[in-house]
């Protein structure tokens, strides 16, 4: 039987790697880079055999002619990001094998738990996958299972459904037939705006960021679900619903508060959150 060994959430901001690598990075970026190095070591210390990676597609391949709410990629290889992302952000590419057995097993288990995953055998992973993977597993030596969530194109599932999906995913992982150690890495962000008047700020809504990180940090699931509505998130910044991938982690952790969490506020280009749960230390039942 498989074992869930780590739950972790970090940003997928494609600007963040450049902010770290740039000349004379500001203190908040230095601190955030240090946070992420700790996250990398933390995941490595859990010795996962496979990483389930939860992230979104930024209208790079799933469009309004076939917009899945939740999708598992089950092709043998994953590669990304898209060429225009490489050009625009100068971010590093990522290639990984996919643990096809685990992907298929999740797709077999999901219908029994009332989760309606779509699936794909032809896809790429965009910066929402490659940025966090390059931080957490730069060796590219672990197979992954990509789970795509729609946080971009309304109508999207509400916060409660993301929580429920996380909860169901924990049960699915426990039922996986393979004797594997499974780490889960979720990629999201807090308030952020792209192409609107609030673009480029430290955060498009620092109050939202602090409030949500406090609620996540205290394991206040119901308040998160109540407050993380589409309208509230959009008021905070026009792509803020990426936060829902962190709500999924709260479900995966069965509502328990994370062992560590925090957020840094650089002077520009969005806040940098992190959160992780000590799964093996007995936080989860």
């Amino acid at each position: 039987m498989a074992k869930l060994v780590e739950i972790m959430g970090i940003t997928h901001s494609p600007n963040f790697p450049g902010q770290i690598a740039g000349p004379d990075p500001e203190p908040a970026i230095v601190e955030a880079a240090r946070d992420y190095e700790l996250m990398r070591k933390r995941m490595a210390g859990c010795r996962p055999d496979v990483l389930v990676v939860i992230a979104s597609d930024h209208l790079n391949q799933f469009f309004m002619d076939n917009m899945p709410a939740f999708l598992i990629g089950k092709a043998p290889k994953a590669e990304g990001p898209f060429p225009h992302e490489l050009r625009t952000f100068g971010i590093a590419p990522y290639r990984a094998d996919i643990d096809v057995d685990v992907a298929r097993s999740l797709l077999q288990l999901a219908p029994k738990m009332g989760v309606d995953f779509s699936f794909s055998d032809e896809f790429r992973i965009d910066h929402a996958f490659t940025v966090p993977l390059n931080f957490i597993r730069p060796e590219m030596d672990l197979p992954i299972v990509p789970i795509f969530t729609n946080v971009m194109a309304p109508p999207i599932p509400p916060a409660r459904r993301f929580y429920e999906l996380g909860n169901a995913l924990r049960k699915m992982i426990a039922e996986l037939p393979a004797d594997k150690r499974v780490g889960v890495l979720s990629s999201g962000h807090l308030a952020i705006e792209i192409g609107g008047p609030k673009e480029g700020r430290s955060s498009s809504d620092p109050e939202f960021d602090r409030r949500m990180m406090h609620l996540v940090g205290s394991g206040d699931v119901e308040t998160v679900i109540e407050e993380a509505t589409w309208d509230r998130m959009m008021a905070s910044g026009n792509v803020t619903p990426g936060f829902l991938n962190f709500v999924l982690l709260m479900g995966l952790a069965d509502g328990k508060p994370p062992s560590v969490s925090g957020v840094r506020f650089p002077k520009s280009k969005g806040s940098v959150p992190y959160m992780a749960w000590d799964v093996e230390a007995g936080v989860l039942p």
Partner: protein
Amino acid sequence: MAEILGIGMTHAPHLQFTDENMANVLRRLLKSELTPAAMKDPQNWPAGMRAEWDSDEGLTAARRHRAALLEGVRAARAALDAFKPDCVLIWGDDQYENFREDVIPPFCVYAFDEVDCAPFKASDGLGADTNVWNEPKDMVVKIKGHREAANLLAEKLLETGFDVTWSYRLHHAQVLSHAFARTILYLDYDRKGFSYPIIPFHVNCYGSNLRIKGKTIEGRLPPSPAPWRCYDLGKQIARIIEESPWRVALIGSSSWSHGTLTAKHHFLYPDVEVDRQRFAELKTGHLRQRRELDPDQMRASGQHEMLNWICLAGAMEGRKASLQLFVESYIFNSDKALALFPPARQ
């Protein structure tokens, strides 16, 4: 005021083509090397199958089959016209038409303003291309959609825990998939025109048994949504409609057991016995039994597409059908059924 009419019907190709072609699937299989030699001998067929085949290779049976189906289809159209729906939702399957390797969803709500429909395309399965209306094979007609209602359904289903895909236009296909196109075609069998806006609603009926002509699929494919999930989805859709301003006809569109999906019958003839049981259950009005059906049994009986009817059953929970027809056949690849559920306030 919201109101719902329920219709269960078939989208099998047989009605579209001539009686002489109706048994072509069986003819093709009788020539196939994959069919055991013993099963090519009618003496080894069920008695009912021999009787249908008779001395004219099923021509007389084809005429009876068509007449029985038309009775149901015409009753459905009359009910639809009397109901005057704002839109018609059709649960149907996709056979590698619009959904392919890049994304295969369990459920998809199509929110079209309008969509092209090519109803007279030749049937690979029947190997026939002359339609009974002698209309041009390449004719394309425009069918209206109801984007507003479809959007509402997608939004409300996602809100209530059904992870549906939604689509504003066709993905791979150029024209409406066969399940929806033929449903409309048969509802317009008497060529009166079909002006009701539609909401095609895809159900991944084939799941692990999806077959792609000329291609081998590596490994296990994910299963179809379970019967209980389809039932609950149908029930939730009915709830959403009841709180909407629209009069909606809900159509579960499929034949029941398919011979070409029934391995235990060497893919020659459908599981008529099990379909008879399903029809007897339908007649009792205990629709909730559909929710408990065993997916493995359904697949063994070639009833993959019945999931479309199970969505309808969920939506019709607590209602009685006013008309129920069972049109069984051993030689025309599938059993067909028709059911009408009148509006609750009628």
